[in-house]
């Protein structure tokens, strides 16, 4: 599954290769130079043109949970490189680089926290980590989080930012689709709510498994939501893609998501969703 970027989305990417933080970033939409600290205050939205800079997992977590409430739950595992994969570079090298850039073991950050006092387990993907692709670590983390939520009866919120399966793990990555879906079925039997937030991008094997099976699915404005990449579709079928293809509103119109919200209102929207699923006195 290709790692892809949608040029039509109003998403602005942080250059993923740089480990050191620069003070200024350039908005790819309007060209404005924005001060990184200012950007944080504006929820990583360009104040001039409204374009979204995508969030790192840590930034997303901070924007969604009550201050200081987040407690990481990760398994602490790193990919075993099950295929000993080498393309132009060894997969091992790519992993180490991504770990250095993101400060994460893999493309997902899992933890517990509260949102307006309501406890939840939050799993947030980081697109900078090899395109947010799902390999054995992402699969294990999501499955463990789902099982934990089922056991402890805490709602699960998954923020998707993924280009699909981790190609470098071959069939091992494909099987994470089955793994995460199996664990999602466990949560369903426990009657615990699952909310998915689809951001830029939500595609490939991630969308074709646990990412499509939430009780409530919220799309962030500017999300790219689709199974196959635009280039693959055009090359395979020769079809011309309609305007707005695979945008959040396309997904809403085609019945794939429940709501589309801006980044500013995502937190409130999650609170609203959790309160109706968790609230109530008669149980």
């Amino acid at each position, binding site marked *: *599954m*290709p790692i892809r970027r949608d040029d039509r989305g109003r998403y602005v990417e942080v250059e993923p290769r740089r480990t050191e933080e620069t003070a200024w970033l350039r908005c790819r939409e309007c060209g404005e130079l924005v001060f990184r600290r200012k950007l944080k205050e504006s929820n990583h939205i360009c104040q001039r043109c409204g374009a979204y800079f995508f969030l790192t997992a840590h930034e997303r977590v901070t924007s969604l949970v009550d201050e200081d409430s987040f407690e990481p739950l990760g*398994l602490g*595992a*790193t*990919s*075993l490189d*099950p*295929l000993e*994969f*080498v*393309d*132009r570079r060894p997969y091992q090298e790519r992993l180490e680089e991504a770990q250095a850039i993101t400060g994460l073991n893999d493309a997902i950050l899992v933890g517990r926290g509260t949102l307006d006092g309501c406890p939840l387990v939050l799993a947030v993907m980081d697109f900078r980590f090899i395109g947010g692709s799902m390999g*054995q670590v992402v*699969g*294990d983390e999501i*499955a463990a989080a789902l099982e934990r939520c089922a056991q402890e009866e805490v709602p699960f919120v998954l923020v998707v930012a993924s280009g699909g*399966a981790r*190609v*470098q*793990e*071959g*069939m*091992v*990555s*494909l*099987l*994470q*689709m*089955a*793994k995460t*879906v*199996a*664990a*999602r*079925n*466990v949560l369903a039997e426990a009657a615990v709510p699952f909310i998915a937030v689809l951001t830029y991008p939500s595609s*490939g*094997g991630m*969308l*074709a*498994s*646990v*990412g*499509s*099976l939430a009780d409530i699915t919220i799309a962030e404005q500017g999300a790219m939501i*689709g*199974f*196959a990449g635009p280039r*693959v*579709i055009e090359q*395979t*079928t020769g*079809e011309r*893609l*309609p305007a707005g*293809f695979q945008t959040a509103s396309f997904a809403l119109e*085609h*019945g*794939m998501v429940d709501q589309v919200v801006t980044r500013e209102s995502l937190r409130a929207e999650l609170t609203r969703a959790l309160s109706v699923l968790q609230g109530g006195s008669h149980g």
Partner: protein
Amino acid sequence: MADDTSIRALEEKVAELRTMMESGGVDLSEEITLLEKKLFALRREQYARMSDWDRVKLARHPERPRGSPLVEAVAENFYELRGDRMGGDDPALRGGPALLDGRRIMILFHHRGSTREQQHACRFGMATPQGYRKAIRLMNIAERLRLPLLSLVDTPGAYPGVQSEEQNIAGAIAESISRTLALDVPTLTVILGEGGSGGAIAIAATDRVLMMENATYSVISPEGAAAILWKDPQATPQAAQALRLTAPPLMELGLIDQIIAEPVGGAHTDPKSTADELRTAVSNHLHELSSIPLDELRALRYKRYRNAGSVRAAADQRG
């Protein structure tokens, strides 16, 4: 494949001699037998040193037994069920009840078509949301009537079209995986030819997964991997190798349960014996699975996929 041309030349020669013998009345049987021995040796030699990329080409071989002819050869009384009950019927993903070795089962299979028109209609076995929703309907029937499920996978992948996206192909695949995993009947997959990514796993998350000797099962096509990771179409054979998409490494990784032997040269050289091998393997596994109580079966199934390619499971194994 290496040396493909010399094998073809020899094949043609044998065919010529046969025609001569039949029309002319001259007895050439001795010469033919000798040539066939030579041909067999060549095939075996070539077969033994096949690269993974050769294997991909064999899995895609136009004459490889697959689709409804193979289903008819393996099972009896196949009754095709059509339609997703929601607006369409996908000819690329088919199925229905059948008898296999006297056992009632539900078969799902990809169909690539043999004529050009069929292949166009079936999109070379790339199924649409309608196909996966039909698959879910058939799984519901299988569970209702307590028929074990047999998935025969042979697809380049799910169909990547505009309408597929409009009809939520990702959601259809996800639901199909979910339904397969939750089925209250024994379930079995055989990767027949190509096991292409999401389009394959959609119906392959079963209690057991078998692979034909020359089948491939991969998260991405070698061509796709070469383009994306190597940025070079020439790297396709290399990508095929790196992806570990053939049966032996997948067996080593613990992702499949059995490799079904094919005749030397590949399944297409002897469709009849291929069908027999396939039937025997399927029948044996279904027999074993049917002896396991259903709740135990579902627990085993959960464990299987929970541990599939897991960091922890692997660590446990190694440690």
